[in-house]
């Protein structure tokens, strides 16, 4: 690993040096219906196809818990509660990252999924907030990749195979 002189240090999401004001916002337009989008977010099989191979399991009742993990991979990815469940428009979840000791130490954050129909498409906004002041970028840095894969899946039925997209998937 090379070290960069301090004068050349670049602020970046990837290495965790980008400060956030406790909130990160991600927005994407997807040509699909709110119902299909909701299903892609809450169905474990579909979720794994764009979420680094990670499934999300829950009964999706308001106040219920959820757990994320990848089949065949022996680490928990995340867990939390479904604070608000209003299909197919709004899902608010508490989010405890579990994939490393470092992210575990970041404590509980919050993820809000908002689906709004726009013409023949949907605007999906993911707000990841209640982040600690010096949040590890690993906590929220994966969203662009996840949402890009979700768009590809719903619009083409195909998997996005860019490096890292399915890092926890089997095979």
């Amino acid at each position: 690993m090379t070290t960069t002189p301090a004068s050349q240090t670049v602020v970046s999401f990837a290495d965790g040096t980008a400060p956030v004001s406790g909130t990160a916002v991600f927005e994407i337009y997807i040509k699909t219906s709110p119902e299909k989008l909701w299903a892609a977010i809450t169905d474990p099989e579909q979720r794994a196809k764009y979420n680094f191979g990670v499934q999300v399991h829950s009964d999706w009742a308001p106040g219920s818990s959820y757990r994320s993990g990848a089949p065949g991979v022996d680490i928990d990815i995340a867990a939390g509660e479904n604070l608000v469940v209003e299909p197919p428009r709004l899902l608010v979840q508490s989010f405890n990252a579990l994939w490393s000791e470092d992210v575990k130490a970041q404590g509980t954050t919050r993820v809000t999924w908002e689906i709004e129909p726009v013409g023949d498409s949907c605007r999906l906004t993911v707000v990841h907030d209640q982040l600690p002041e010096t949040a590890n970028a690993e906590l929220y840095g994966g969203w662009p990749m996840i949402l890009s894969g979700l768009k590809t899946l719903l619009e083409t039925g195909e998997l996005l195979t860019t490096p890292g997209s399915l890092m926890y998937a089997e095979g």
Partner: protein
Amino acid sequence: MVTYLRGVDLVFKALADQTRRDLLDALFTEDGQTLSALEGRVPMTRFGVMKHLKVLEEAGLVVTRKRGREKLHFLNPVPIRLIHDRWVSKYAEPWAAALTDLKAQLEES
């Protein structure tokens, strides 16, 4: 596909301007800023900054959220990721990786 292409044009157009890139950098350094805060980051009138923010919003690179009476501007990195997935990963990743390695090696020696 059509929506994708239109979106990509807007993103490239939005990025083809120094002031707009400066505004994105300002949001990258500190996300969730008001118009007044952003005004102080670029040498431009309030109206000019508003105009540039509108272009960035239309391209999806900036998303606004209301917090109380304030309108906060957030950098939305998703459109850049879409361009990456469509273009960079397909054509440039092996080259980019090789060049990054070369850069690291040269800087080490």
